[in-house]
């Protein structure tokens, strides 16, 4: 056998084990109850245990060498991943404070930059266009009641 271990199976298995352990161990801090009258901890504890077992099974399968070409994780678009995560978090953090217009504009700008095909000028243009479009759709058409400019700014509406 000259196959490779499947990194993807091992990683997937570990993710499931981690979630299973996290849910099961947290469940222990809640009242478990009895099967007759289950407490809030019973159901998640049982499922967390099952998830750990499934995760171990998946990871175990990954250690068995196979000759298939599958099992490699492949490349990751790090720039896109980081920019998109930051953009979404930024929106959540600032939409109340800065208001809808600035939060949308910055989120759109960061997201647009996630593509290697978009330069800074193009990103600015996309952000401006998208912000206007969103205001038309969400504020004018759908009457979303959110301050356009929030209390963190010196001029609030």
């Amino acid at each position: 056998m000259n196959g490779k271990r499947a990194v993807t199976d091992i990683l997937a298995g570990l993710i499931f084990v981690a979630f299973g352990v996290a849910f099961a161990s947290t469940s222990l801090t809640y009242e478990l109850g009895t099967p007759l009258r289950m407490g809030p901890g019973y159901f998640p504890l049982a499922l967390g245990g099952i998830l750990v077992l499934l995760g171990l099974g998946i990871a175990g399968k990954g250690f068995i060498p196979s000759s298939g070409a599958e099992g490699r994780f492949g490349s990751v678009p790090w720039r896109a991943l980081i920019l998109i995560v930051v953009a979404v978090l930024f929106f959540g953090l600032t939409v109340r404070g800065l208001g809808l217009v600035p939060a949308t504009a910055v989120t759109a700008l960061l997201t647009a930059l996630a593509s290697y095909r978009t330069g800074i000028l193009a990103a600015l243009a996309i952000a401006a266009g998208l912000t206007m479009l969103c205001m038309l759709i969400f504020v004018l058409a759908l009457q979303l009641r959110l301050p356009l400019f929030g209390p963190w700014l010196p001029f609030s509406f």
Partner: protein
Amino acid sequence: MELLDNLALGLGTALQPQNVLYCLIGVVLGTAVGVLPGIGPTATIAMLLPITFSLEPVAALIMLAGIYYGAQYGGSTTAILINLPGESSAAVTAIDGHEMALKGRAGPALAAAALGSFFAGTVATVVLAVFAPPLARAALRFGPAEYFSLVVLGLLASIALARGSTLKALAMIVLGVLLGTVGQDIYTGTPRFVFGVRELYGGLNFVSVAVGMFGVAEILRNLEDERARTVVVEKVKNLWPTREDLRRMVAPVLRATGLGSALGVLPGGGHVLAAFASYSVEKRLSKRPEEFGHGAIEGVAGPESANNAAAQTSFIPLLTLGLPAHPVMALMIGAFIIQGITPGPNVITEQPALFWGLIASMWVGNVLLVMLNLPLIGLWVRMLTIPYHILFPAIIVFAAIGTFSLGFNPWHVYAIAFFGVLGYVLIKCGCEPAPLLLGFVLGPLLEENLRRALIISRGDPTVFVTRPISAALMTLAIGALILAVLPAIRRRREVVFQEEL
């Protein structure tokens, strides 16, 4: 005739100008996202769910349903013209459809897809109208034990019919159910897994989960390889199929309609499986199997009819049992809940206008789709020239604003980022996101009915196998799991999905 009365009531509702308008918006949006590779109906419906809050229930559901089956039409256009499935079920259509386009017969291929879909959609709407009421009546007698077994069946059957590793799909379901337990416990009010964050007491929002796993994760996948999507589309001419084409289409369309209607009802199967199954059936039955893969019109008409029929009948378990067959239906549950309606057997008696209006609107929508798709094909093709690097920022920004507007909770926005990254990593590891979303939506139902059934039975766990309906459902569920695990059948399943590609 009760059926005719009901359909008349439905048409009366569906043909109100306002509802026709929302149906039109739905199918136009659906066609658009179907045409565009990289955005599917799941992400679109998730993004638009928050918007439907301000609409009337009937209008909201008609529009969202329109997006779903509209995407089946749009997906075939991209598949035929540029050999890229705009929507997952159109992958099969691309095989022969694109070959036809290369031979200068794109027009007949598009027409075959649209006409087949229209016929299948019409029949499936009637199937839905005939079978939904008796099923709903039966479901009304279900107690918690039956519901628990039904949900177990739904979840396990979705694995048996889905593609990929059974073990991974099971783990995704369990993870989904666990994520569904976040928030206050229904019986004791104890906040679970919220880590002191008050905003999470109401639980994670399924819009965040769906937008993250299906929208953001998909965008990251697409950004891995940013080669220019050069779209060279020749002008489509000679839209009409020849008499010979039409003659060859009839039998495949009829068979596919039956096949699609049946498979659409099954959990997890739905339109993708129906399309694949129809293709292999037609190839096997054809007198000219050698033409398949080289532009056989049967290979376009069959799968396209099948996926559209399945798209309609997959509403049956949703409307009668409150059980979603796949992620889009899980989002439809969300749409019902946003409108304050609990999906399930009661909808048909308590909201007859909504129930029949939604069904009738599917037929109206299919008429609109044929009218939109064939004459306006040039317009849809032009949409393919919108560059992806303009499209995906719009998806992210819409998702963020839309999700925030549901309850103005910033944690629902943070969750998009979390599930986007988690979904991306899991998809790269070969775990399909659909079972997780199904588990997430059905998890609370599973726990509630389990606990209630055990309280009623005074802690006797045999209640699930001693009550006859529950026992039958459990047997089916175990059967589904065995089917998914058995190596011989597993291999067959892989064959159905992969042989033709």
